[in-house]
């Protein structure tokens, strides 16, 4: 995955609340391999096509609510979106986004038109608007680090192998009923 630092790009505006993952990508496309290119499935049943050069999506509250399908993130990324700005996000969607290098910025930005050019500065946690003003946002520190580094968590986790093994040893005594028997 590509590291995310700063991005200056035009926005696409989808000013609706509760855009769920079924709207982002209908379930019937989820059986496709990622190599098929998920961008073609983005908003398939909404009859929406994004402005070609848009790399930032500005959406309404609770964006990405609903199912856990990571295909929703693949569809956005494959359609060229690197950042979604919305007042709030579905939890699982936001987690999936961070895993794939898609930045979610929790911010209410009203009144933007398609094509407005924004600059997203992740290290400084600000969004710069064309009129020279800036809006700051906050992001989970762990997610931020992962986005800046562009790496997945598995290697990080495996570096804690000793702590995991120690946990498992004590847990066997503490919760002997927790394994799968039968």
């Amino acid at each position: 995955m590509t590291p995310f630092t700063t991005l200056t790009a035009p926005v696409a505006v989808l000013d609706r609340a509760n855009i769920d993952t079924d709207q982002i990508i209908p379930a019937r496309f989820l059986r496709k391999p990622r190599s098929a290119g998920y961008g073609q499935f983005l908003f398939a049943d909404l009859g929406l096509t994004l402005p070609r050069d848009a790399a930032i999506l500005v959406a309404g509250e609770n964006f990405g609510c609903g199912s856990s399908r990571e295909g929703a993130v693949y569809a956005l990324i494959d359609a060229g979106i690197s950042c979604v700005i919305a007042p709030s996000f579905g939890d699982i969607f936001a987690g999936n986004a961070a895993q794939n290098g898609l930045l979610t910025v929790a911010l209410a930005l009203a009144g933007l038109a398609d094509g407005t050019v924004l600059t997203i500065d992740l290290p400084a946690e600000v969004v710069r608007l064309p009129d020279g003003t800036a809006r700051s946002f906050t992001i989970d520190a762990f997610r931020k680090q992962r986005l800046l580094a562009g790496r997945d968590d598995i290697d990080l986790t495996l570096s804690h192998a000793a702590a995991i093994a120690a946990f498992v040893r004590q847990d066997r005594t503490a919760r002997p009923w927790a394994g799968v028997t039968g």
Partner: protein
Amino acid sequence: MSAPRTLLDKLWDSHAILTRDDGASLLWIDRHFVHEGSFHAFGMLDHAHRPVHRPDLTVGVADHYVPSHARTRPIADPEVAGMVAQLQANTVRHGIRLFGLDDARQGIVHVAGPEQGLTLPGLTIVCGDSHTSTHGAFGALGFGIGASEVAHVLATQTLWQRRPRNLRVVLNGALGVHVAAKDLILAIIARLGAGGAVGHVIEYAGTAIRALEMEARMTVCNMSIEAGARAGMVAPDDTTFQWLAGRPFAPADFDAAIAAWRTLPSDAEARFDREVTLDAAAIAPTVTWGTSPETAVPVTASVPDPAAEPDAARRARIGEQLDYMGLTPGTKLDGLTVDRVFIGSCTNARLPDLRAAAAVLRGRRAAVPGLVVPGSVPVKRAAEAEGLDRIFRDAGLIWGEPGCSMCVGTNGDTVPRGERCAATSNRNFQGRQGPGARTHLMSPAMAAAAAVRGAITDVRRLMP
């Protein structure tokens, strides 16, 4: 003395391997369910040449793509068949137990897991499916994850998470006659809003929750995600323990397990970040009119009028939903014609759900076509032993094979464009049951009543 803790706090503390300064905890995962859709994650694992760390704690279940019609013939659509075959291949290759297409334990993962006793109090349970919140009915911490996280759990049996906030939803009083767990959770979602519980885990408490049987608690926890919650939980009690006793995967030393589980409920003085209280007696049979579960209203209500909404954004949102749903403001919901019914899904396809629907359909004919899909093979067998299948068939409905079916339509069971479907599933999103499909969510008894009349109907009138 340690500070009073909630059920969630106790689950969290007993599973946090370590917590970083930035607040991210590495959690141990006790159970990991995979299904056909997990193929992306297996692909990531294979790509990086990583083994599955704990195949013994991983269980595969075929549900999203399995046919609900006769299983004797091969699956016609090669892409759908490939999804089922791929799960088989991935689980076999990694030594993972599978409840596959021909297994007597097969079913929707959130029905089959609890039924087999794989879901237990005090466990962390994850699955690449948002309705993993269902498992919280047992006092487990169950939540849905995406494909990258599925790959992470497969590789490490752990997950990085930030501790969610505690929200207690208290249901006092008792539910009325023909008012079900589905009505209760729809009323809660309407109250909280579709994003109202984002960042929280809901603990359901109060007399009305205590009175629910396990299947009903699962219905409630299942839809926690529709209010945006990460998970829903009910503290375990004797109802839980009795339900689990004798299940195939229940712990060998069951008494010792019970003793441990009795320490799980939230301490009396435990502090919740938020608390919401509802009166169970005030809840009526409930249906949704729009394309979000938060549009749940009593069946006695009418379709809302956007003109009456002062907030411009909300007015527009109501208008869009009415457009999609083909509804006119002011229309009474009771009496609104439907084209078909679907009784099934991980929300409402367990034995008591099928009994409730059959009680309404007994000796009656359905006025519209419909599909009844039991949640698992054991549910199907038990229903047939009671003759419920005959009641559905005699009413003119199709009795299907266990799986997700028309809840999401990935196996090909979809609602045709523009048709209105009375459904017992959990999502009425645009296109959820098929492009252009119009879904009204309701309880099994209400869906059965809708089948009988060919229109949304207050079941209390049909069943005095």
